[in-house]
């Protein structure tokens, strides 16, 4: 059976509720935020462990270890929350590939959940115990957590990469014509791609440290020497991290299939140039540069990476006749309107309120008193939540009444 026909047949027979390109764009955009927190979490976890083992040298290392432990703890929850959106958009337009890949490695897909739970619990144990004068052996919890986080990254990488190789699915499912339904193997790993994406964790936490030093500039309990220490460390991690990331990136660029046009593709070249530019910028970062600017640069780089992943996916699937543009569309405008209104209203106003509140409260030492603007934002957030809940129920009840009684 032609695998291209198979993939098109495996699509959701109900079609998609809006043009597929809309889901593609949302998938690319939301993945940027997800992977940003993946990098921050992995980088912060690694730095927390490194600082933990250096805490005897200086109180700054001890302070940094505790801070990074908290960053990684919060980062995990955010990367999970922010990972839902790109996962769902992938399932909408690339459902045949994603589900086939997950079934082919079913045990690993399930193991992902359990290892993530164990990793998070282990990291939480480290967070709980990592205080002044902490005992050395608690570092084991951190190592277990970080190694399992890396394993989870490998599982996600394999599931994504296997989805690009439909020509090999049958060989994995029934090697030699004998069906193997165990789902016990990770069938395809592209090490340069995995290592490149993982390697960005080091410069990511470096950039975070630069912003961290800027953020606490107004707090007297974060002494200037400590902030200078974190900014300097962040700059070194960012500049060297981007240089090191170039190696697996170039390896990845060289490993694209011949004839796919990917080796010299403009987006791939742009990604290489972006990494070089970030490395150069971080190397020569001036003292007066605003601490948040590198974060914007990093997010821009991740946007190119996210776009590049999608270009690669399209290039791999097109020869098989799979094109999202011809996915059946059954437009559902009320749902689309509800989605974007929720994104702007609940996401923007409620999320914006929380972010503003947390951001401002963290910059104040002692008791924080909200300004009039933040208080209004809070009132608006509560109101919009009320409206959203009301619309949610009214919309559902209206459809139920229409379908059942009219």
């Amino acid at each position, binding site marked *: 059976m032609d*695998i291209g026909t198979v993939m098109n*047949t495996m699509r959701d*027979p109900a*079609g998609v509720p809006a043009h597929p390109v809309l889901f593609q764009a949302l998938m690319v955009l939301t993945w940027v935020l997800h992977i940003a927190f993946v990098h921050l979490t992995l980088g912060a976890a690694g730095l927390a462990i490194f600082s933990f083992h250096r805490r005897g040298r200086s109180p700054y290392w001890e302070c940094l270890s505790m801070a990074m432990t908290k960053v990684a703890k919060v980062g995990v929850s955010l990367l999970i929350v922010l990972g839902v959106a790109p996962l769902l958009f992938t399932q909408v337009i690339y459902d045949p590939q994603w589900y086939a890949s997950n079934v082919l490695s079913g045990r690993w897909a399930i193991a992902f959940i359990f290892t993530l739970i164990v990793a998070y619990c282990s990291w939480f144990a480290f967070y709980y115990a990592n205080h002044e004068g902490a005992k050395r052996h608690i570092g084991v919890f951190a190592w277990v957590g970080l190694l399992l986080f890396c394993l989870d990254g490998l599982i996600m990488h394999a599931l994504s990469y296997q989805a690009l190789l439909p020509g090999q699915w*049958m060989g994995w*499912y*029934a090697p030699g014509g*004998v069906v193997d339904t165990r789902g016990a193997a990770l069938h395809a790993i592209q090490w340069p791609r995995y290592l490149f994406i993982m390697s960005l964790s080091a410069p990511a936490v470096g950039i975070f440290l630069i912003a961290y030093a800027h953020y606490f500039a107004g707090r007297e309990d974060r002494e200037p020497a400590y902030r200078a220490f974190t900014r300097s460390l962040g700059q070194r991690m960012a500049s060297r991290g981007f240089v090191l990331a170039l190696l697996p990136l170039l390896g990845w660029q060289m490993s694209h299939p011949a004839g796919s046009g990917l080796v010299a593709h403009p987006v791939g070249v742009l990604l290489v140039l972006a990494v070089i530019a970030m490395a150069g910028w971080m190397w020569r970062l001036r003292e007066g540069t605003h601490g948040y600017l590198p974060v914007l640069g990093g997010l821009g780089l991740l946007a190119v990476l996210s776009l590049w992943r999608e270009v690669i996916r399209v290039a791999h699937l097109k020869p098989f006749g799979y094109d999202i543009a011809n996915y059946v569309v059954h437009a559902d405008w009320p749902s689309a309107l509800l989605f974007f209104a929720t994104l702007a209203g609940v996401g923007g106003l409620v999320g914006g309120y929380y972010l503003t509140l947390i951001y401002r409260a963290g910059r104040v030492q002692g008791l924080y008193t909200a300004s009039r603007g933040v208080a209004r934002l809070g009132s608006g957030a509560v109101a919009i939540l009320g409206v959203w809940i009301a619309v949610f129920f009214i919309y559902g009840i209206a459809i139920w009444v229409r379908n059942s009684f009219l």
Partner: protein
Amino acid sequence: MPGKGITGEVDRIAEKGLLQLHPFIPDRLRVVNDGNRLEVGQLLAKVACANCHALQRRTPLRHIPDKFHGATDEDLIAAFLQGPLKHGTQPYMPRIDLPEAEVRAIAHFLAVTNSGQDVERLIVQQRSATRVASQKE
């Protein structure tokens, strides 16, 4: 209830069979014969039944040997597959209508499973015997 242009596939499967329509069936198993009946029956049971039922004895999740009360009579099992299951009259189960050869293969596999024999070992033996026979030809 039709909607969004979705067409039912149960009747098409009843006409052509899962072995011909399912995309992930190895070619050597697309036609049932004496040398692969048990293996085909196992694969079809996995495709058609294992979403809701465990296939092994003494396992959780509504295992099939228990549902058939350990029956080893292939005709009895086939009668259920060609009766309530074919016509969709079994509560809580979808209508599954398969061609005769596929029903017999599933019934054979379930009967062997219920008899307590080592199905995996038997399949390996049959596969080896088939390979030897084809090499002699």
